[in-house]
């Protein structure tokens, strides 16, 4: 009976900790994605402003020098699990719009989007990371509570 209680308590602890870990990873991936997105748009802004580099070449160069969640997205790998459909659609819509306007309009649009994303990464991404760490700690605490109650 005691062994069963200890086993159930351990399972409860690991389940709670796993949920916390999953939440933390999800939020860190989300933060990493948006930081990569900002980095990519900064790169695009530079390359388009000074070199008028075509988008295909620009993407290839970016992927050569950067890895991470956003690079995986650019390669067409799945981003399910940490971005909502709405967030994905918003990113896709902006990226699809690159290359459809003249140089001046494109550069102005990128500059504006970079400013917006800079603010976003400074506030929201920091929050995602903090929240991730908090959720993990809380879930470990819940796990410990389960452990104490059941053991």
């Amino acid at each position: 009976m005691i062994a069963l209680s200890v086993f159930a308590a351990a399972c409860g602890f690991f389940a709670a900790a796993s949920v916390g870990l999953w939440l933390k990873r999800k939020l860190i991936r989300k933060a990493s994605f948006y930081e990569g997105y900002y980095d990519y748009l900064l790169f695009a802004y530079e390359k388009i402003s000074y070199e008028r580099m075509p988008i295909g070449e620009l993407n290839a160069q970016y992927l050569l020098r950067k890895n991470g969640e956003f690079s995986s997205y650019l390669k067409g790998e799945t981003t399910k699990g940490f971005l909502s459909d709405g967030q994905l659609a918003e990113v896709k819509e902006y990226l699809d719009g690159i290359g459809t306007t003249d140089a001046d309009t494109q550069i102005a649009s990128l500059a504006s989007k970079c400013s917006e994303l800079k603010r976003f990464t400074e506030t929201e991404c920091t929050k995602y990371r903090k929240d991730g760490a908090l959720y993990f700690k809380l879930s470990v605490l819940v796990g410990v509570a389960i452990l104490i109650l059941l053991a």
Partner: protein
Amino acid sequence: MPKDLLSYPLFRDLPKRVTEIRVRKGGRLCYLTPLSRFSTEHLVTDAEFADLLSFVTDRSLYALTEKLTNGYLPLKGGVRVGVAGEGVANGESIKTVKHVTSLAIRIPHQIFGVADFLGIDGYFNQNVLIISPPAGGKTTLLREIAHTLSDRGKNVVVLDERGEISGAGEGVFAMNVGENTDVLFGFPKKQAYENALRAMNPDYIVTDELSGTGDVEGVLRAYYGGVKVAATLHGEDIDVFHGVFAPLDKVFDRIVLLSKSPVVGTVKREVRR
């Protein structure tokens, strides 16, 4: 038709010998072959037009802004896409074109031997001018003249501002313009004449669509410098040497007038002077 364009969904059912495709937002898809003009039943939607524009610009319209202001986009293989839309003016000049509504895609063809009717003595050591209305076959004939002269040992310099004669793009030529041919691709005409005459030691300068004082000055410089010229000019008749082109009257020894009917490239008249 170049492979890339051939595989584009909107053009998949077009015949291989198409020479021009007309795409208008909301309009019928039309195309030309050497024999006739055809209008399909397909109405081009806004989404299809946007996708095509993205395709022809390689999703990088911003990289082609300067070209766009000249009214065309150069594609690989010498394909030229004429663009119509709303011009954004900056003083006297056009800064860019927005809200593009029409594309005229012109596809070059190489027809070996198409200049044979002239006889090689018809243009060997002579200044040749080819005249026709737009899409009359001028460039095809000019390309073959360049090819023949070059393969017979003449140093030919092609002034190919838009890459239509040689099909130039990324250092590769889609058309055969001869083994002794040098191509100045992408150079503004005035600069191209200067560079060709100063640095390339040409026997022949080959240039498409004479269009203004820059061309006239360039041709005259070549003429007085002892370099032969083969060129094309838009026109309906051989009486083209007036206005800005008046000084060229004395230059050309051989004039070929082409017509679009009954088929593109029909020789309407040929004059030795």
